[in-house]
C-alpha cells in the first residue's frame, strides 16, 4: 500500500469521486487555477473544467446556499470553506437551512452536499486561521460531522460524505495535512459514518480524542507505556452522531477516561463525551471524568510561545495521564 499525507488522500479521493459521479461539482474560493490554498484541488480545473470546478465570489453564505440549491436539484456539490474561521458567515445556510431540508419537507427534498472545512491550530494562524468550529455542527440535528485524523480515514470518510444523501461537514485538521502520513489503499473503499475506532488498545485508561490530538495522544500513550501504563486511545472520527456505544464500551472496560481536545472546554465535544460516560459508565468508573483541553481563551495567539502554551501537547497529555492514574 502506498504512503500518503492527509492532503494527498483528500485530493485523490475528491478526484476519484468526481470521476465516478458526474453530479459531483466543486465550489469554493480559489479552487480553480490556484488549486485551493492547500492545493487540495490542484489540477482539477484542468481535468474537470470550469463547469464542475467553480471559483466562487468571496461569499461563504453564497457558497453554502449554492451548494444547497444545487443539491436539491440533482447535484452532489462538494464545497470548500477556505479556512474554518470563515465558515461563520455561512452558518445560516448550513445550520439553519441545509440541516433541516429533509426534515422540513418531510423527506420530499434532500441535500446531498459535502462541506470541507480545514480547521485547527498549531500552524501560526492566530485568532482567525486556527479555530476549532465543531461544536455547533455537532450539536445540530440533521447534520453529519466527520473529523478524520489519518490519511486512511480521510479517504474513507470523505468518500462516505460525498456519497451520503445528507449534508455532511468534513473537518480536516490543517496541521495534519502534511504532517501525518499513512498507508492508503488505491482501491475504492468507504468508512461507515458514526463509528469510532480504537487506534491503540489498552486496559488501564481510555483516552477519547479526535483530529490532531489523536496523534499527540498516541505519542503520549507510547511514552507512558514505557513506564508500564497501558492506555487505550479511542479516535471518535465522527463527531455527529457520536459513537456512544464505543465510548461506553471502552471506558467501562478500562474504568478511567481522559478526554483530550484542542478546542476550548465549555460546551464542547469533550462535554458530550463526559455526559455519555457519566450516564452510561457510572457503575464502572474508578476515577473522575477528566478533560484536557485548550484554556478558555479566544483561539489562539499568533506568537509562537503563546500558541504552544495554548495547544494541548504530548507532554501535557502524559502529565494528565499520570495524574489520573494516581488517583
Amino acid at each position, binding site marked *: 500500500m502506498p504512503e500518503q499525507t492527509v492532503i494527498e488522500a483528500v485530493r485523490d479521493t475528491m478526484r476519484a469521486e468526481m470521476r465516478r459521479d458526474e453530479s459531483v461539482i466543486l465550489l469554493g474560493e480559489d479552487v480553480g487555477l490556484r488549486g485551493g490554498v492547500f492545493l487540495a484541488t490542484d489540477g482539477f480545473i484542468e481535468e474537470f473544467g470550469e463547469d464542475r470546478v467553480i471559483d466562487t465570489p468571496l461569499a461563504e453564505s453564497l457558497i453554502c446556499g449554492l451548494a444547497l440549491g444545487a443539491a436539491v436539484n440533482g447535484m452532489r456539490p462538494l464545497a470548500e470553506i477556505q479556512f474554518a474561521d470563515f465558515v461563520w458567515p455561512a452558518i445560516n445556510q448550513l445550520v439553519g437551512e441545509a440541516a433541516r431540508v*429533509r426534515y422540513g419537507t*418531510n423527506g420530499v427534498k434532500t441535500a446531498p452536499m459535502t462541506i470541507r472545512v480545514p480547521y485547527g491550530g498549531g500552524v501560526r494562524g492566530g485568532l482567525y486561521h486556527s479555530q476549532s468550529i465543531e461544536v455547533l455542527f455537532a450539536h445540530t440535528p440533521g447534520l453529519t460531522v466527520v473529523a478524520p485524523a489519518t490519511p486512511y480515514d480521510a479517504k474513507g470518510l470523505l468518500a462516505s460524505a460525498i456519497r451520503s444523501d445528507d449534508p455532511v461537514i468534513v473537518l480536516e485538521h490543517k496541521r495534519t495535512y502534511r504532517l501525518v502520513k499513512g498507508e492508503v489503499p488505491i482501491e475504492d473503499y468507504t468508512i461507515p459514518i458514526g463509528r469510532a475506532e480504537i487506534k491503540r488498545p489498552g486496559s488501564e485508561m481510555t483516552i477519547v480524542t479526535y483530529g490532531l490530538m489523536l496523534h499527540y495522544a498516541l505519542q503520549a500513550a507510547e511514552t507512558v507505556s514505557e513506564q508500564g501504563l497501558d492506555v487505550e486511545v479511542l479516535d471518535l472520527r465522527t463527531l455527529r452522531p457520536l459513537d456512544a456505544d464505543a465510548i461506553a464500551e471502552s471506558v467501562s472496560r478500562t474504568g478511567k477516561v481522559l478526554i483530550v481536545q484542542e478546542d476550548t472546554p465549555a460546551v464542547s465535544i469533550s462535554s458530550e463525551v463526559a455526559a455519555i460516560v457519566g450516564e452510561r459508565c457510572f457503575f464502572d468508573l474508578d476515577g473522575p471524568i477528566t478533560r484536557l483541553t485548550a484554556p478558555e481563551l479566544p483561539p489562539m495567539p499568533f506568537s509562537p510561545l503563546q500558541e504552544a502554551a495554548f495547544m494541548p501537547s504530548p507532554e501535557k497529555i502524559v502529565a494528565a495521564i499520570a495524574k489520573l492514574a494516581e488517583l
Partner: protein
Amino acid sequence: MSATANKSSKLGTTSPPLSGERLVELYRTMVLSRYLDERVWLLNRQGKAAIAASAQGHEAAQVACIEATDPSKDHYLTYYRQFTAMMALGTEPEEMLRGFLAKDGDPMSAARQFPLHGAHPRVDLFNFSNVIATQLPQAAGVALADKLRGDDAVTIVFFGDGAASQGDTHEAMNFAGIRKLPIVFFCENNRYAISVPLNKQMAVDTVASRAAGYGFPGVQVDGTDVVAVYEATQAAVNRARAGDGPTLIEVSVERLQPHTTDDDHTRYRSPEDIAQMANKDPVKITSETLRRRDLLTEAEDEAIHAEAKRRVNVATDTVDAEPYPDTETMFDHVTSNRDEGGS
C-alpha cells in the same frame, strides 16, 4: 408597466399575449385565493389556525407571474406570502387548509412547518425556511444545476422589499449575474417589512435599480396589473431560457392586511395610508378591467364569487374534522441512513 419598466420591452417577448379566457381563469384563482385567505384569518381568530400571512393585495402579481412560467419544468422558491402563487400552481383549498390547521395530510411538510412551508408534492416549489432571503442563494444553486446540465428550466425566486436588504440577496444576484444563470428574481414590494417602511429599508426608490450593479436588467411593474406582470415575467423567462441570464422584476403592490395574524398595522400605518389601499385592491381592479374589456359579465363575476365561497366552505368543513398527524411520525426524515435516538 411604469416608466422605469421600459427596459423589459428590450428583452423581446416572443410568446403569445394572454388570452381573454386565460385572464378570466387567473381572475378565478385570485377570487378563490382571496376567499380562502380571508377564511384563514377567521380560523385564526377562532383559535384554529396558529398563524397566517396573507397574500391579499399581491394576488394579481402572483397569478400573472406563475402564468408566464412552465410548472412542468420550472422551479419556484417561494416565501411565506405566496398564498396565491401556490393556488395558481394547483394547490387545492383543502391542501392549503391542512397546512394552516396543522392537520394530517398537509402536503408541504406534514404539518411540521408553518403553513405553506416545505416542498410541494406535484410541482417543484419549495420554501424551506422562514428565514428571510435564504432562498436567493439556494435559487441560484438550483439554476446553476440546470445550467450545468443544459436543462431547459427557469428558476423563479420570490422575495419582499425587506429581503432585499439581506446580504444573501446581494450574494445571490452577484453570482447569478456572473454565471448568467436562468433565473428570475421576483420582488413583491409592498413598501413594508412588517412595520419598517421603505425609506428605512433603502435610500433608493426601487429594488429594481440594484440590478444594474449585477449586470442584468431590472424592471418595475404595477403589481395590480395582471397583463403587465405577465408580460414582464414572460420576457424575463424567455431571456433566461435563451441563456441570456437573470432579470430582476419588482412588482409594486399593497399589503392589504397586517403583516400576519399576529400584527396590528394601525400601530405604524397612518389612517390615510390604510385608506388609500382600497384603490389598489387587485381583485377589484382585475374585475373592473375584465368587465370593461367585456370579458366578464356581472352574472359571471357573481358566479365566480359564489363558487369560490362554496369551495372554501367545503374545504373548511372537511379539514376541520381531520386529526392532527400521528405523533410518532415526528421522528421520521431527520437523515437518510440512521435513527437519531440520542447523541
